[in-house]
């Protein structure tokens, strides 16, 4: 067999390996091999004396056409090649990962800084995303929640409240919608109220009641725990059946199954308990109080306001559904002789979520933080790439291809970002716990925020994305470098370092720009909250309480009966020790009461038919202003408080809006609703006051009418600090009528404070994220300058040796920092001018272009940047020329 020894094998193998780079050439190889066999056979025959033609013919006879064998060889070899490629990849990956771990482990400090930066950036996002995911993406725990909309109506014209007003449709309209609208699978209506439970023994209690249609449990995809749910027959039989909530059943009724069939006394009427609904069964509105008792809804009672929720048929758009509802509404309005202009409004449940705008703002903020974190780690990668320059060059010279080196660096980034993601999950979880623990009482729905599989997947995706993002920067940079150059020169080539410095400068400038935007945004919110907190509410809140007085319709059917009760209540309240003041009003602050009707001033044409307006109003006693501490600017207070009184008072905002140049006193106006409305005369003008809460504009037009005790009025009391008077006042109601529960009490002072709790919470969170961003940006700037100083040690040494003063050196370093910071600030300011429009509606009393906030944000950023310059600068001026020049 020695004759087959191949002297050229090695050379060919190299050539072959080169070809391999372009992928296996299976077909050509198999064909070559078989052709070689044929040629050899032919040669053999010819050596035995056959002519070439004869030899070929003999070979063909002997071998056949070889097609089957060729195909077989191809299959086997292709299969083998594929398996080998896969094995090689896995092997290379394992090598890369092991190598990455070893390299990262060797530079513990570096790895810790990078991982921590990533963990903070990713963690902030994970935390905020958990909240967004739970609250905004899954606002309703109902089946097919994506097709659910809440139905309202909005006035087409003449809204004078300065707020986005949406009203619930009237029952007759909802009935018509339910019957005729084809855009929906189902339209659900419900109403809520509070009722008094009078048990056989023990104290009366006020319960949250929801009246629902028999179809709501199916709509919500929930079933009774025990007993049965409502049926249509329940209503025709008088509707005196009730379902208990799981909470009430477990608490008050001790989870007793025997509760079914028992009688429940609510507001003096008896209801038979037929079932218990699970705690997961909730009304389709997220901020509703937990319901205690469910009653069947009587849709023919026109006096209740209905909340309406509907599920669209698949494929029906909001717009098409709205048009259909409006056409149904129009038909009904015509037949009922209604001339008020409302159009339907479909609101996705997520839009009803409290804190929604803040969550969107915070999402934007944490995204910026993550970008800054990425830029920082990209820096770190670049700085490290520079120190590893020789290592990479040597590996390149030893045969590692560019692709291989880039892959190695990317693997390192991914390993790093995986560590960052794990850290991020921990940070996010801690952050979420902290967020829920610190939430203001008014944001109860934050408690529902959870981390789930989606959060986990998003975190992993973020990790991979960031890994690629910062990894690529370093990898491309390293791959570009010429191997030859780096090996030859002991130091970095100037062209390379200039290019790298430019990239690092760019990163730092974008970091500073993003931080500037965050800082200005945070400054605006801080200023806004400070304004809210220090704002004079316009009335004296100290010691003030509001008690909402609800009288059962049945027992107090006539106005006279109600008035007698209110008078008795006020009289008794004034005798309680510690009570400084007690009076009735239609509403107690912070409240939002509207008069519905289009405003018409005397001398002006009547508003067009169909115009609807909403005007803030309150019904008050003549001494209300004196007791509240709201100054009378002009005219007098009410002198006629009878039912026939035509007197009205307005706030300064009202007077200025409609009579900017003259006095409002003596002017006449009316509110027109359905073509009707009595003319009233303005007798006085009072100062603006934040009686609707601090986040509303005090200068919104406000009407005051004499108190009539019409709807559910409030008892306003002021008690001396440190007394227990309010408890005594609260117990007055059951004392007057033992069937009445003690009323709900609002601490006005605390409620006014609470009305700014949400903005303050948003501000605190944004400030925290901004601080994080600022620290990261400072670290980034510090890193760039420190690196520059280290790079230029030799040069600095020479300059000092040649007589350059330390001041000149310091100025050079600071100058570089100032340049970078200024660049970032300029871009950041430009970005802020554009981006602040998105937070405009979260600002109270501060314009979005507020120069103070812009200046403060810029100054703080600049100061931080200068602080970051200090250490590198000191290092530069302390360079010892002798040591610096001896090095290398």
């Amino acid at each position: 067999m020695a004759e087959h020894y191949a002297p050229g094998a090695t050379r060919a193998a190299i050539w072959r390996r080169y070809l391999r780079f372009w992928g296996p050439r299976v077909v050509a190889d198999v064909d070559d091999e078989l052709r070689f066999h044929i040629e050899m056979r032919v040669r053999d025959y010819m050596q035995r004396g056959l002519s070439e033609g004869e030899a070929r013919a003999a070979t063909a006879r002997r071998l056949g056409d070889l097609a089957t064998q060729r195909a077989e060889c191809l299959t086997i070899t292709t299969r083998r090649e594929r398996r080998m490629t896969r094995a090689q990849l896995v092997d290379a990956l394992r090598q890369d990962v092991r190598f990455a771990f070893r390299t990262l482990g060797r530079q513990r400090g570096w790895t810790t800084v990078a991982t921590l930066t990533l963990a903070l950036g990713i963690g902030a996002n994970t935390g905020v995303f958990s909240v967004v995911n739970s609250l905004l993406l899954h606002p309703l725990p109902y089946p097919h929640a994506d097709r659910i909309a809440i139905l309202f109506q909005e006035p087409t014209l003449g809204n004078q409240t300065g707020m986005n007003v949406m009203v619930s449709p009237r029952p007759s309209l909802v009935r018509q919608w339910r019957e005729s609208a084809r855009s929906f699978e189902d339209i659900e209506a419900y109403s809520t109220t509070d009722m008094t439970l009078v048990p056989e023994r023990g104290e009366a209690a006020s319960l949250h009641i929801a009246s629902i249609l028999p179809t709501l449990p199916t709509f919500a995809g929930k079933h009774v725990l025990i007993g049965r749910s409502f049926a249509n027959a329940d209503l025709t039989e008088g509707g005196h059946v009730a379902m208990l909530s799981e909470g009430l059943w477990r608490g008050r009724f001790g989870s007793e199954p025997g509760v079914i069939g028992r009688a429940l006394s609510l507001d003096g009427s008896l209801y038979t308990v037929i079932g218990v609904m699970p705690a997961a069964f909730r009304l389709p509105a997220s901020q509703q109080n937990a319901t205690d008792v469910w009653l069947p809804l009587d849709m023919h009672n026109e006096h209740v306001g209905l909340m309406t929720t509907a599920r669209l048929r698949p494929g029906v758009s909001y717009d098409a559904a709205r048009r259909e509802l409006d056409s149904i509404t129009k038909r009904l309005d015509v037949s009922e002789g209604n001339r008020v202009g409302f159009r339907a409004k479909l609101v996705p449940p997520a839009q009803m979520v409290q804190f929604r705008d803040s969550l969107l703002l915070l999402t934007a903020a944490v995204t910026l933080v993550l970008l800054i974190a990425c830029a920082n780690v990209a820096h770190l990668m670049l700085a490290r790439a520079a120190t590893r320059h020789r290592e990479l060059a040597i590996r390149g010279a030893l045969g590692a291809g560019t692709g291989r080196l880039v892959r190695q660096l990317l693997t390192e980034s991914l390993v790093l970002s995986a560590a960052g993601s794990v850290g991020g999950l921990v940070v996010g979880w801690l952050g979420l716990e902290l967020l829920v623990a610190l939430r203001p009482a008014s944001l109860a729905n934050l408690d529902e925020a959870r981390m789930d599989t989606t959060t986990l997947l998003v975190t992993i995706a973020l990790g991979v994305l960031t890994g690629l993002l910062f990894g690529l920067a370093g990898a491309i940079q390293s791959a570009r470098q010429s191997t030859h150059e780096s090996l030859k020169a002991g130091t970095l080539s100037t062209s390379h370092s200039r290019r790298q410095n430019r990239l690092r400068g760019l990163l730092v400038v974008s970091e500073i720009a993003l931080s500037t935007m965050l800082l200005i945004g945070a400054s605006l919110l801080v200023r806004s909250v400070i304004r809210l907190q220090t704002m004079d509410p316009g009335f004296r809140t100290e010691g003030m309480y509001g008690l909402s007085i609800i009288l059962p319709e049945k027992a107090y059917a006539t106005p006279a009966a109600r008035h007698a009760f209110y008078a008795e209540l006020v009289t008794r309240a004034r005798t309680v020790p510690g009570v400084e003041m007690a009076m009735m009003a239609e509403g107690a602050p912070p409240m939002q009461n509207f008069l519905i009707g289009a405003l018409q001033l005397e001398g002006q044409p009547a508003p067009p038919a169909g115009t609807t307006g909403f005007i803030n109003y309150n019904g008050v006693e003549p001494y209300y202003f004196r007791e509240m501490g709201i100054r009378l600017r002009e005219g007098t207070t009410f002198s006629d408080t009878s039912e026939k009184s035509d007197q009205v008072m307005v706030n300064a905002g009202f007077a200025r809006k409609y009579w900017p140049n003259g006095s409002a006193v003596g002017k006449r106006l009316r509110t027109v609703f359905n073509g009707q409305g009595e003319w009233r005369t303005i007798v006085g003008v009072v100062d603006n006051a934040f009686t609707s809460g601090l986040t509303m504009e005090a200068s919104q037009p406000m009407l005051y009418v004499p108190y009539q005790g019409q709807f559910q009025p409030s008892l306003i009391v002021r008690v001396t600090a440190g007394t227990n008077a309010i408890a005594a006042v609260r117990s007055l109601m059951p004392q007057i009528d033992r069937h009445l529960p003690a009323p709900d009490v609002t601490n006005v002072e605390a409620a006014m404070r609470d009305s700014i709790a949400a903005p303050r919470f948003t501000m605190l969170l944004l400030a925290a994220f901004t601080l994080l961003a600022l620290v990261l940006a400072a670290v980034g700037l510090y890193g760039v300058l420190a690196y520059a100083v280290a790079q230029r040690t030799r040069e600095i040494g020479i300059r000092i040796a040649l007589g350059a003063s330390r001041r000149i050196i310091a100025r050079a370093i600071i100058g570089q920092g100032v340049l970078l910071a200024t660049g970032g600030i300029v871009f950041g300011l430009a970005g802020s001018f554009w981006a602040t429009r998105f937070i405009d509606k979260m600002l109270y009393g501060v314009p979005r272009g507020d120069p103070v906030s812009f200046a403060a944000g810029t100054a703080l950023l600049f100061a931080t940047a200068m602080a970051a310059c200090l250490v590198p600068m000191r290092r530069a001026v302390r360079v010892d020329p002798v040591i610096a020049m001896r090095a290398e």
Partner: protein
Amino acid sequence: MNTSVEFLKGTLDLMVLKTLSWAPSHGYGIARWIEQCTGDVLQVEEGSLYPALHKLEERGLITAEWGISENNRRAKFYRLTAAGKKQLAASHDSWARFADAVFKVLKTAPTGR
């Protein structure tokens, strides 16, 4: 020997491994070697040699490398691997025992007749 072709298919692997145990060789060389050794008695069906070689390569018993042949042409050379050597030894023994057993049957005449 035409009747033995099926029987011999299983033994082709063994012969290839044995051939390669002397020295690396290309496919044609292997075919020629088996021909020369067995004379006209065993004629390898040349086409089936190549699928057999590729299968052995896939099983890791032999490896292949492209080289230059004695007449200066590009040819694929096969070489026995360590696993191939082990396999050869095992097959060799079992084949020898098998052949021995068959041979005994053929040689032994019944005694009881």
